[in-house]
């Protein structure tokens, strides 16, 4: 077609020009995240230098905080868990070119459902496994309903899912706020009462009695759920008929329709699964970390998940890796104050990685006569 080359925009500079790569070499596909991370850190270093900090000291402390010891890994795992779950959800929808931007809202609704189960549906005395199972199912269902709304609107009425899913984020957050300041509030504060212990996802540190080295490892078993689902999703997409349908739909919906694949049904289904996974992220946050519903318990995991899914090129296994990288970046943010600098640094690193990914699709050509 027409996009094979870029036309040189500047006729006076003749020697160098950018050309769209026809094919990304395989080495580049594999190496690109690493190269980009390096470049991003370099940019960040310049920024840190400018504000008068020692980049090496900051970076080594960031790395130390995030990956330096078991505690660091625990903290990073704690952040990676919701990112993996929501990232898987987002990637699933993106695979079908359904731009589900609503993971944040789906996460909140999932948390809301799980909270309803823990505080109001089941008695405190419910055995822990049953309690957690019902909470997980409820969280998934809640997220699925929330994701299903844009799905149905898209499938039936062709309403743009970017807009509906985005707007539903705000609805979900306000819905949550209504409950935590109203009916489910603890003394008017923006939080619900604490869950009974039976509704807490087990944390590693809970087993410190038997295994003393786990003391202070506050990461919870949600990470197992996340890892298992990543593998399951990877396998389903690769090896099942339904996974194949999704891949065809994602690659060329018109061809999928032609091949007898049901677009309407799959659109709704995928949006529901996508929302359900984000809902699980919400359940795992309230049951594993905050142990109650509260305002802003998610610092935008649902949005970060979009970037995670993209940088992982929608590959479920890569999502695990990228989530850890990201979680490390968030945890490492405590390494430097004021927080604005840490955020700026995170922003620069992200921007370079996302933007650089695009640039790597081009190559520099040195013109010859």
């Amino acid at each position, binding site marked *: 077609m027409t996009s094979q*080359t870029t036309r040189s925009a500047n*006729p006076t500079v003749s020697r160098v020009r950018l050309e769209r790569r026809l094919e990304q070499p395989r080495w580049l596909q594999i190496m690109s995240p690493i190269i980009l991370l390096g470049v991003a850190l370099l940019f960040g270093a310049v920024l840190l230098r400018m504000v008068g900090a020692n980049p090496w000291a900051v970076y080594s402390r960031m790395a130390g905080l995030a990956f330096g010891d078991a505690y660091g890994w625990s903290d990073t795992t704690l952040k990676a868990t919701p990112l993996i779950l929501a990232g898987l959800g987002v990637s699933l929808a993106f695979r079908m070119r359904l731009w589900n931007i609503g993971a944040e809202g789906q996460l909140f609704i999932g948390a809301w459902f799980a909270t309803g189960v823990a505080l109001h549906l089941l008695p405190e005395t419910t055995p822990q496994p049953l309690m957690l199972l019902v909470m997980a199912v409820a969280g998934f269902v809640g997220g699925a309903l929330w994701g299903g709304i844009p799905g149905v609107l898209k499938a039936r009425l062709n309403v743009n899912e970017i807009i509906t899913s985005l707007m539903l984020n705000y609805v979900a957050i306000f819905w949550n706020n209504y409950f935590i300041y109203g009916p489910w509030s603890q003394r008017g504060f923006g939080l619900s009462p604490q869950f009974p212990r039976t509704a807490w996802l087990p944390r590693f540190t809970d087993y410190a009695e038997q295994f003393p080295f786990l003391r202070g490892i506050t990461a919870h078993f949600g990470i197992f759920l996340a890892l298992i689902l990543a593998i399951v999703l990877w396998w389903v997409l690769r090896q*099942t*008929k339904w996974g*194949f349908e999704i*891949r065809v739909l994602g690659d060329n919906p018109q061809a999928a329709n*032609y091949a007898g694949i*049901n677009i309407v049904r799959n659109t709704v289904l995928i949006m529901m699964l996508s929302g359900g996974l984000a809902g699980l992220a919400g359940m795992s946050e309230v049951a594993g970390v905050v142990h109650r519903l509260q305002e802003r318990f998610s610092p935008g995991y649902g949005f970060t998940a979009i970037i995670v899914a993209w940088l992982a090129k929608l590959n479920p296994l890569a999502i695990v890796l990228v989530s850890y990288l990201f979680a490390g970046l968030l945890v490492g943010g405590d390494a430097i104050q004021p927080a604005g600098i840490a955020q700026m640094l995170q922003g620069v690193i992200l921007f370079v990685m996302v933007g650089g990914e695009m640039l790597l699709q081009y190559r520099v050509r040195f013109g010859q006569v």
Partner: protein
Amino acid sequence: MSTNPAFEMRNISKRFPGVLANDNVSFAAAKGEIHALLGENGAGKSTLMSVLCGLYRPDGGELLIDGAPVDFRSPRDAIRAGVGMVYQHFMLAPSQTVTENVMLGLRDTPFVLNTPQLAAEVEKIGAQFHLPVDPHAMIWQLSVGEQQRVEIIKMLYRGANILILDEPTAVLTPPEIEGFFRTLREMAAAGKTIVFISHKLDEVLSIADRITILRGGKWVDTVANANLTKATLASMMVGREVLFRLDKTPHQPGAAQLALSQVQALDDKRLPALRKLSLTVHAGEIVGVAGVAGNGQRELAEVIAGIRPVTGGAIAVTGQDVTHAPPLARIQAGVAYVPEDRSATGSAPDLSVAENLALRAFRKAPLAGRFVLKRQLMQQQAQKLIAQFGIATPSPQTPSRKLSGGNLQKLILAREISSQPQVLVAAYPTRGLDIGATEYVRKVLLEEREKGVAILLLSEDLEEIFALADRIAVIFEGQIVGDLPANTADLETVGLLMAGEQVEA
């Protein structure tokens, strides 16, 4: 026609990753000459012309315009030097008028536009070269042929003296082609140089002054158009002898496998495209649908495949009613469909060749169990089909977007035919294919006919329809206006029917 070369390309080489698209090719044309550039798909015609019009820079060789060396960095440079190209895919803004499109992208577009004056110029150019277009019409209102005229006017308005036309007749009906050739002659008479890219031998023979043949990226020969035959040209193109006649067994129709009665459907703009169309195809016959593009062919194929809803009438396949059945039910009923648009409809470009080959059969044994795909068997199946249909692909894992048009078409045919259909709808199956691939596709269609498949063939190539079809159904404004036995039908009658004339059959 003078002997001064209007442009000269010397020893041009252009390499793409893995392909040497042009290997030391030299090519020149004189002022006032119509020069045809002939070759199979992948022979390097388009690449060579892209170099001439500034889209690519060659890796080697030089380019002279009017005897002076030039170095184009962009199509803009080329246009300034008087070289303009009309692509197969037009570059027009559909919601703008003809005049506005002509102005679009002009280098020195003034801030305040003098539209009436421009419109007058557009009309003048149109009149001079027999390119009648309403300067105030919106592009989307125009037929493909008219849009092509706009493209040509655009180039002429920009002062192009060298016009490159990339397979210009592919989108035109026979009467339009006549008018178009007249335009080309007028332009040549006015001193313009015309490079005519084609692989249709008849056309080349009827219009070109000289013919340059490329094969596999290399220059083969440049010959004057005198005492040439199709056969010689074809063998130069393909590098071997080519047969133009097809052997066909007598017509022995079986049961009615596909029956459309009073079918109505809308086009993409939600206007009626099929108006109570009725048509029957029997087992073991090929029905060729002839018609001017845009008379409902696309919609006809799509309602049969089930990807376009039917608003009235009924469709039956092997006697079962499938009028409102989804695509999957049609597939299960035995309908195979070779779509008009190979890459947009017929394949999933990023999926592998093997996966594309399984697009129909992946649901059932042997390729799948209840839930799980059997990748191993998929692979074997793919290898079998690749060998059987001669699909040129590095491996079954290659993404299908890397295949050439001909090989992609073979892939689609392989997939559709290997599903052992009862009914095969083939829409423009040889469009854009080179001679070798065309030959192969036609052979496969005839084989299927032998096996008793009911085949509906849509084609813009009347020659093809006459060669393959047992019956010719002429479509005009969404209706079948004539249904003639192929062996007694004559070209003139079919042409008149296509144009909407009433003919006593």
